């Protein structure tokens, strides 16, 4: 039999539908591969062998009874930020300890509703704060590309990207607050989409920065992300920002083509000192879309350079508020002190890692009396300017093409000393979080060392279909077939 773990989600679903193999067979194939490779990659923080096999058997029974769902029998990995009932959900933080939720997140509920199988929980930066998966309390994740070099898979969804890239699951859930789906996808030669804010319910996803957080999939190709996204999305009364809009057939849009579409190229994304290959790759992308019948238009997003500083006010402010709940009283770890306040302070100092503490302090400062207007209010106004940039751009184009990240994957440990250097990873992705827009990263080429690089397509709010159409052309033209050698 062929190696089932190499299949795309789409071809695995086709194989299951045709009866070429069962869910239990493909699930066992993934579990065996995880057991063999996870000690090297550290992509999973929890492998749910028994649950996976039970899910798979139940799925095979449903299929036999003629009740197959859209993801019936497909083994998936779940980022540790999603609450999974009865299975440890720690957001890769020490402070949550062995927290086992008594509830299931809406997004994962939707996946199980459609018949998917859970393989386990995936590593990530602590509370999704990081761009290299190095802030995880469970240790860094290794990028499967050139594994001997010990490169980061990016972050925060580093476990999701590494697992998909190394064939340790068919596809994975991820989340994106400033680039946490798209940058890891770019670093690992996978596809990742952050949909429009409000497409996916945030209920049951551990909150980082609520006005920026959005769930989405990382998968092996564009069609696979479209299939995953359709299952993950949908209105949810339990999240007041969840949008009550129809969920289109995203996969149908992938082969739509770009004839007649106007693709914007923003001059502000051309950074000084950007590697030549990235510049070239961007030009390749422009040429591919032109050849496929799109019209390329120069656009300007003048407030781009202010997006990251704006983000590093808004996100820590929201995080400092969201993370106030970790006080050691109702769940998670507690460190006893002399009195109540001392207990809070010791619990939080011991439970949160350095980057999380740094962001809580920044967030508390920018929200504190006397500084609120200068920082937080100002950032909210600049954020409005950034959204306005895009609104003006949409008068000239239907979608925007940019690089996903300013570099390829870098070695673990390289950027740990300077927080701002790490933050710059998200320079091309963070604008869409601030504006609530959808963005997708598609692998399009390799750098001088043979490491994958992604191109990003940004779309109008709720127009993921155009995004998938453009991404489909980029994928087809790039014909990126390289795989990590494991």
């Amino acid at each position, binding site marked *: 039999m062929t190696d089932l773990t190499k299949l795309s989600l789409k071809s695995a679903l086709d194989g299951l539908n045709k009866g070429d193999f069962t869910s239990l067979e493909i699930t066992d194939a993934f579990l065996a591969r995880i057991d063999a490779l996870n000690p090297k990659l550290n992509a999973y923080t929890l492998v749910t062998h028994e649950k996976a096999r039970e899910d798979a058997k139940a799925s095979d029974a449903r299929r036999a009874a003629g009740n197959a769902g859209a993801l019936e029998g497909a083994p998936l990995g779940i980022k540790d930020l999603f609450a999974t009932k009865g299975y440890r959900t720690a957001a890769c933080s020490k402070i949550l300890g062995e927290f086992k939720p008594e509830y299931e997140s809406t997004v994962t509920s939707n996946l199980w509703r459609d018949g998917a199988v859970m393989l386990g929980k995936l590593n990530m930066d602590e509370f999704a704060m990081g761009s290299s998966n190095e802030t995880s309390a469970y240790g860094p994740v290794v990028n499967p590309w050139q594994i001997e070099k010990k490169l980061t898979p990016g972050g925060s969804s580093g476990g999701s990207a590494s697992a998909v890239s190394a064939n340790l699951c068919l596809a994975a859930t991820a989340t994106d607050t400033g680039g946490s789906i798209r940058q890891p996808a770019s670093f690992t030669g996978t596809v990742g989409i952050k949909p429009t804010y409000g497409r996916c319910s945030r209920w049951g996803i551990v909150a980082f920065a609520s006005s920026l957080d959005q769930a989405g999939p990382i998968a092996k190709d564009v069609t696979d992300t479209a299939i995953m996204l359709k299952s993950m999305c949908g209105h949810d009364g339990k999240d007041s920002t969840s949008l009550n809009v129809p969920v289109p057939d995203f996969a149908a849009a992938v082969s739509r083509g770009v004839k007649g579409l106007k693709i914007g190229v923003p001059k502000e994304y051309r950074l000084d000192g950007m590697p030549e290959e990235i510049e070239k790759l961007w030009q390749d992308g422009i040429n591919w879309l032109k050849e496929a019948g799109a019209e390329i238009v120069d656009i300007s997003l003048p407030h781009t350079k202010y997006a990251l500083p704006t983000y*590093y006010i808004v996100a820590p402010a929201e995080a400092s508020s969201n993370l106030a709940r970790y006080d050691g*009283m109702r769940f998670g770890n507690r460190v006893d002190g002399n009195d109540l306040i001392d207990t809070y302070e010791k619990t939080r100092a011991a439970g949160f890692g350095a980057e999380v503490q740094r962001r809580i302090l920044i967030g508390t400062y920018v929200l504190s009396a006397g500084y609120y207007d200068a920082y937080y209010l100002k950032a909210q106004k600049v954020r409005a300017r950034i959204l306005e940039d895009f609104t003006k751009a949409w008068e000239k184009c239907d979608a925007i093409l940019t690089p996903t990240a300013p570099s390829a994957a870098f070695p673990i440990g390289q950027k740990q000393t300077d927080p701002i250097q790490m933050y710059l990873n998200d320079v091309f992705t963070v604008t869409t979080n601030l504006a609530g827009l959808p963005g997708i990263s598609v692998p399009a080429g390799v750098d001088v060392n043979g490491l994958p690089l992604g191109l990003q397509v940004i779309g109008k709010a709720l127009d993921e279909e155009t995004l998938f159409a453009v991404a489909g052309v980029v994928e087809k033209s790039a014909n990126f077939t390289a795989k990590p050698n494991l």
Partner: protein
Amino acid sequence: MSVSEKDVRKIARLSRLAIQDEKVPVMVDELNGILNWIEMLNEVNVDGVEPMTSVVAQVLPMRDDVVSDGNQQAAVLKNAPKADSGFFVVPKAVE
């Protein structure tokens, strides 16, 4: 604007984060590095701009004011560091 050691101690207290004395100067440097970088926003003219408070323009939905969940005492206490007789056990909060 920049923060002093006194400011960092105050912010840490507001954040309910115990901070070791030797870490204070380190945090002062790190926070000032980030705050100096953020100062870039002063270049942006925001005269007459309304602060963005909602990502997607929509009115918050109302639901019927009815009980939709409840009787979850055991589930609520399941992950408590300390619980007894159906209650959370916490350090003394009132003298």
